[in-house]
């Protein structure tokens, strides 16, 4: 029987700071750039191959509620703009395991941040995209 994932309690850690209680969305993109290896004699285009390793081009996008209180969203994120950091995202807040893999992106770069994104009558949120870095999946 097929199963589906209902994310209600994922673990989101940015620069070792847990922002789970401020996070409403997290997307981990695991990408190896596509390199064409088509050659004469081929009848169809080919990409990659057992001896061709391309660069990873990973990213993690998170959406957080904004908070200017001490040790909250703004205090944690503002200093990370323009530098590299490490993120960990897991489907649940429990321990790492085969059914709760931890995805760790080391060396991710935060290019921009929106310190103020406010609309009348709405909770302020920030959407952050961390790019680059090496992604690893841990199951134990």
């Amino acid at each position, binding site marked *: 029987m097929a199963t589906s994932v209902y994310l209600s309690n994922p673990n989101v*850690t940015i*620069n*070792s*700071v*847990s*922002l789970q209680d401020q996070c409403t969305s997290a997307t981990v993109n695991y990408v190896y750039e596509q390199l064409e290896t088509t050659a004469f004699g081929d009848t169809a285009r080919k990409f990659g191959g057992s001896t061709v390793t391309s660069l990873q081009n990973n990213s993690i996008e998170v959406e957080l509620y904004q908070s200017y209180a*001490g*040790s909250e969203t703004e*205090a*944690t*994120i*503002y*200093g*990370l703009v323009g*530098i*590299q*950091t*490490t993120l960990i995202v897991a489907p649940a807040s429990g321990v790492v395991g085969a059914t709760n893999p931890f995805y760790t992106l*080391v*060396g991710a770069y935060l290019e921009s941040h929106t310190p103020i994104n406010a609309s009348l009558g709405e909770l302020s949120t920030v959407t952050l995209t961390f790019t680059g870095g090496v992604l690893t999946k841990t199951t134990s």
Partner: protein
Amino acid sequence: MATYIVTSDRLIWKRGTVLDATDLGDVNIDGLIDGGHISTHSVKKPAKTKTNETED
């Protein structure tokens, strides 16, 4: 080696834990300091005690 004390409840370490750069690994330390999650920790040297040894 510089040491740091945890000052928030959002880290995997409990508030008050003393860490060094090795513990923090790939973490951006300046970012944690700016965010108020850790602060530099200086270890006070114990005061020197005088010994009143007398020579025979």
